[in-house]
């Protein structure tokens, strides 16, 4: 099989952790198929970052001023040129908000599918088989990726970050790409509001989801959080409703949290949410649906109405604290 590529994600002077997860997975696939593993880093003055990618056999490094900012169109065009020259078998793309657009634009330019939601990948002979997570985590599909090249979006957490880090000096090959002015122009980064509490620093978080039903019910979560000096955070729909600020969102587009205790009230456990909280030390989930995927992640689960469980818990904790 031809080479296996990993698209490195680098932004604002750092290689994202997911890059190393993909390198770990890519290494397994490369070994199975007897092919070299190559990392592709697109950037500007980013050689220092290329040096961190020693887990790959080769780092293809494209240095171009047009690749300094996160402009998916430029990154995709650059990748398409490199693919044309080097004909890899597969390109593993981080499924992050930052990189997913690179993958889908690339696939559109090449006229091939973008295989989405992949959590595992194997090579067997000349075939690639992916395991993909569908329907918000309720189903998994074994899928053959037969396109040439196979553009595959890999979910965060497919492998551990440590597995993909290496002290080996990176073997860097400079590659050239030519880029015209993009149609879509990057203007600036917008930083998160910092005035609010920093949920990443809290030991105790009460996370509310759509199951909390109304804005008023969030008070219940506030009260529960207060019993243990914690804070309230939420899933995307709660943030979208405007019931909590953006700085309280946990998950793919929000914060990564690892508190000592994470209590979910009415959260289903969609992969995009789980991504942000799965490393919490103790997870307690309350959900009316016994089949909710959150129970596969939680340490303790209660099938029940959050609006009944939360008040009972507040009372008991208060009683214990005296």
């Amino acid at each position: 099989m031809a080479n296996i590529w990993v698209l490195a994600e680098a932004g604002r002077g750092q290689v994202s952790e997911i890059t190393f997860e993909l390198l770990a997975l890519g290494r397994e696939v490369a070994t199975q198929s007897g092919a070299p593993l190559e990392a592709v880093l697109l950037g500007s003055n980013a050689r220092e970052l290329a040096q961190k990618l020693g887990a790959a056999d080769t780092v293809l490094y494209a240095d171009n001023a047009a690749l300094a900012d996160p402009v998916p169109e430029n990154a995709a065009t650059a990748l398409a040129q490199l693919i044309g020259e080097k004909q890899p078998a597969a390109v593993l793309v981080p499924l992050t908000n930052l990189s997913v657009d690179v993958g889908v634009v690339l696939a559109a330019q090449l006229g091939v599918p973008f295989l989405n939601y992949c959590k595992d990948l194997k090579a067997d002979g000349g075939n690639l088989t992916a395991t993909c997570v569908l329907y918000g985590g309720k189903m998994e599909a074994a899928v053959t990726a037969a396109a040439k090249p196979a553009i595959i979006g890999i979910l965060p957490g497919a492998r551990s970050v440590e597995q993909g880090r290496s002290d080996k000096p990176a073997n860097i090959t400079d590659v050239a790409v030519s880029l015209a002015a993009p149609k879509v122009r990057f203007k600036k980064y917008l930083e998160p509001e910092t005035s609010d509490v920093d949920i990443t620093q809290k030991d105790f978080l009460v996370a509310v989801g759509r199951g909390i039903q109304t804005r008023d019910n969030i008070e219940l979560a506030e009260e529960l959080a207060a019993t243990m000096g914690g804070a309230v955070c939420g899933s995307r729909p709660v943030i979208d409703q405007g019931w909590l600020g953006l700085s309280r969102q946990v998950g793919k587009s929000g914060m990564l949290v690892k508190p000592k205790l994470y209590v979910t009230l009415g959260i289903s456990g969609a992969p995009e949410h789980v991504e942000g909280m799965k490393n919490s030390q103790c997870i307690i989930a309350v959900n009316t649906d016994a089949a909710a995927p959150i129970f596969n992640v939680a340490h303790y689960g209660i099938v029940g109405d959050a609006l009944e469980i939360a008040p009972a818990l507040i009372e008991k904790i208060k009683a214990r604290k005296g």
Partner: protein
Amino acid sequence: MDILVLMKVVPDVVEELEVGSDGKSLDTGFLRTILNERDDHALEQALLLKDKHGGKVTLLTLDAPDIDDVLFTALAKGADRAVKICGAGSVSSTQMAARLFGETIAKTPGLLPVDLVLTGVSAIDDLDGLLAAPIAQKLGWPYAGVVTQATLADKTATVVKEFAGGVRGEYDVPTPAVLGIQAAEKPPRYVPVAKVRAAMKSQTIESVDAPAVEAAAGVEVQQMAKPRVTGHAEMLEGSADEVADKLCELLAKRGLL
């Protein structure tokens, strides 16, 4: 400002999902579908832009069971026109859906020109691609995905894309453009059932024949199954008071209380 909103229905995951007899797809026997949540946000963003700038919002969907309800609801919310693409059967491939939408937009008289095509950035059944980028490619228009804000002025859409950790990026996108909407600036508006009923009486849904497009290839499902659960929570049972007591015990044991 005229906007085209592409919408699709997806399985409602609040219901129990089962694998069909082919072992490769969902059992559609009892399947309930709902509008893709991101598409609902795309519709809302379009209506917000219409509220501000005027213009027309046209809905375009693939025909599916229950789709008329979705379209009438959107019309009742303020969309001006609804068109469904009929005769393509049940389309499970997003790549295929993109081809059908792209070809229909390009070829159907009266759908273009528009300033923006909006659709949800993704859906829970998007296995072989996301809708917006290949449509943009087909039309030769710019594309931006994971969009959470969009304002229009002077043939330019200024959009905010969401990254991670609360960081976002601002971009200028020349119109016409295709945007994959992650969230509208406001939660999708509510529409009373009476208004939906009124829309059913006063408005009509147009149909166009599905264009001939190349079949999707390159991704084939071999098998589908519920995920093998590697870990599962220890379940606490009893009344609210009883489980609260048990939880307190556990927290105390772990030194958390």
